[in-house]
């Protein structure tokens, strides 16, 4: 398997084992003992046995070198845009904006046109797709170096359906990492996620089912928030979403294929506003070449309650 192009800001953690693993991308199953390891000492969380409660991480709690580099590059870009606005003449500035917009549009189109599309009637879309129930399923992810899901749990009703979706597709494999994204103040979704993870750890103890964590990001707009301060909170929320998308899971940083877990493979959302923000941010990261093209694939599952309109139409 050819190594995928990593952006140059990825910093390898300080583990001697990893240096040998950089050049190879063999698709063999990682040793189970490595996957459940507590984080290396330079992280802020204390050592935990793998069966403890999933760690709840507030966004921006710890700045590892990757985050620092990413945000400083973003800051440089924004500041230079501001500088250009202040110093250049209007014609030059307009030309600059036109070039940037053209670039963004070109990137957006090239990403969406090269999306792998499922073939209609393909057997993974139906629940009993194979001809004989005893034949092995076609698609097996157990031999991959990493399988990383990001589940967005928005408000109440959406979270309950998301938990059901997770249960319908759950498979126990040690090379898996599940990350749940919640908004601050949403205790119902947090308890739902904790309950699901407890169920998984009782069914599959000692990290046979992979690792997990929970990240909380702030809401883009609180209820009854005045519109004047909304752009600022949206930006803060987007920044925290970037962190949620790019933060390497603590349990994986010390493992041999840890860098495969840098970005989620699949983002699953079913319609809450948090989902929209995170997916928009993910798309922008792909457009800006921050994240390689074979990551951050997004799935939008419309809630069954919407028989006529779409969730995304609500505010």
């Amino acid at each position, binding site marked *: 398997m050819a190594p995928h192009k990593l952006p140059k800001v990825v910093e390898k953690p300080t583990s001697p084992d990893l240096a040998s693993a950089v050049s190879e991308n063999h698709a063999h199953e990682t040793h189970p003992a490595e996957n459940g390891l507590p984080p290396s000492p330079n992280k802020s969380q204390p050592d935990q046995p793998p069966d403890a409660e999933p760690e709840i991480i507030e966004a921006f709690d710890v700045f590892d070198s990757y985050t620092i580099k990413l945000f400083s590059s973003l800051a440089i870009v924004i500041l230079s845009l501001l500088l250009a606005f202040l110093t250049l003449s209007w014609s030059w500035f307009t030309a600059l904006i036109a070039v940037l917009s053209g670039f963004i549009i070109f990137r957006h189109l090239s990403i969406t046109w090269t999306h792998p599309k*499922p073939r209609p009637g393909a057997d993974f879309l139906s629940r009993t797709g194979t001809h004989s129930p005893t034949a092995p399923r076609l698609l097996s992810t157990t031999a991959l170096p990493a399988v990383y899901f990001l589940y967005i749990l928005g408000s109440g009703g959406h979270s309950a*359906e998301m938990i059901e979706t997770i249960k*319908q597709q759950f498979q126990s494999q040690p090379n898996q990492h599940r990350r749940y994204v919640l908004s601050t103040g949403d205790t119902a979704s947090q308890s739902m996620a904790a309950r699901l993870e407890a169920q998984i750890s009782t069914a599959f103890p000692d990290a046979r089912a992979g690792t997990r964590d929970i990240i909380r990001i702030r809401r883009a707009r609180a209820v009854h928030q005045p519109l004047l301060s909304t752009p600022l909170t949206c930006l803060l929320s987007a920044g925290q979403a970037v962190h949620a998308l790019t933060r390497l899971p603590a349990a994986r940083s010390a493992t041999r294929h840890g860098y495969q877990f840098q970005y989620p493979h699949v983002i699953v959302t079913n319609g809450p506003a948090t989902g929209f923000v995170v997916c928009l941010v993910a798309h922008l990261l792909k457009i800006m070449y921050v994240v390689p093209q074979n990551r951050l694939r997004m799935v939008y599952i419309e809630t069954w*309650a919407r028989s006529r309109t779409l969730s995304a139409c609500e505010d």
Partner: protein
Amino acid sequence: MSSSSRGLGQNTRDGIKRIPDGEDDKSHISSQARDNKRPKHQDSTNDDDDMTPAATLSRRCFVTIGATAGFRQLLAEIIQPEFLKCLSDHGFDVLDVQCGPDHPWFEEHTKTLDNTQTHGIQIRSFEYTKNIQDHMLACRNQPGVRQAGCVISHAGSGTILEALRYEVPLVVVPNPTLMDNHQAELAEECEAQKWAVYGRLGKLPDAISRSQELVVQSGLNDLAPYSPPPFPVPESERVTLFDWMVLTCYPEELAKQQHLRDLRSVTENFQHEQAPAGHGIKDHGKLIFD
């Protein structure tokens, strides 16, 4: 006559008014139920309520407002005497209410009700619960233990899903104060698909009757005890869309697996072609149904 609670309706039409003994704090429950769907019998089954063993089976109504917004209109309606009379006519004895933020208001209004106003219905209320599953399962039919009750809920999709999963009779009442209309759409869809009854504010007694009819139609009065679905889902039932999406992140691996599948199907076809050379009918039959 003593009959089990299966097959409601047919075996209670002897017209005899039975007053089960052992009822102390409940007022006389009329057995002239308009719908004849409630068997009364005197066997000594134990049920899990705090009722004496010789009493009739319990039938509970659970009202849930939801965890987000208040729904005072519904709360006001369920303590109307007409509604409580309708409940008691249909054989209900307990009314559990999850009030949400309006709990103090509800308590204030119910503690002044006396026995004649409540028609013998015991009203219990609380603000929130972490364990809505237990309250809903108490409305689920269990032969010999309790009859199919009723769950009256706001039209939240999560609550509706749970009620349908536990197979309890459901009445959906959309909250008209919520701006978005999707609650009403959802309630209409549930009614159309016969999953639940669309309850309109002001016509709740009618909704209760319709719900009891739906119980008979859907066979919700003869259920095995509830068992949660297996987790993890068996492999043949699992949704594999997400696996495919992860595999598209590793195109070589996806290509390899598709190639293997093609090889496997080619091998199977080859074996089927090879088999019929000079064999009898038995093997030919095996080929067809293999």
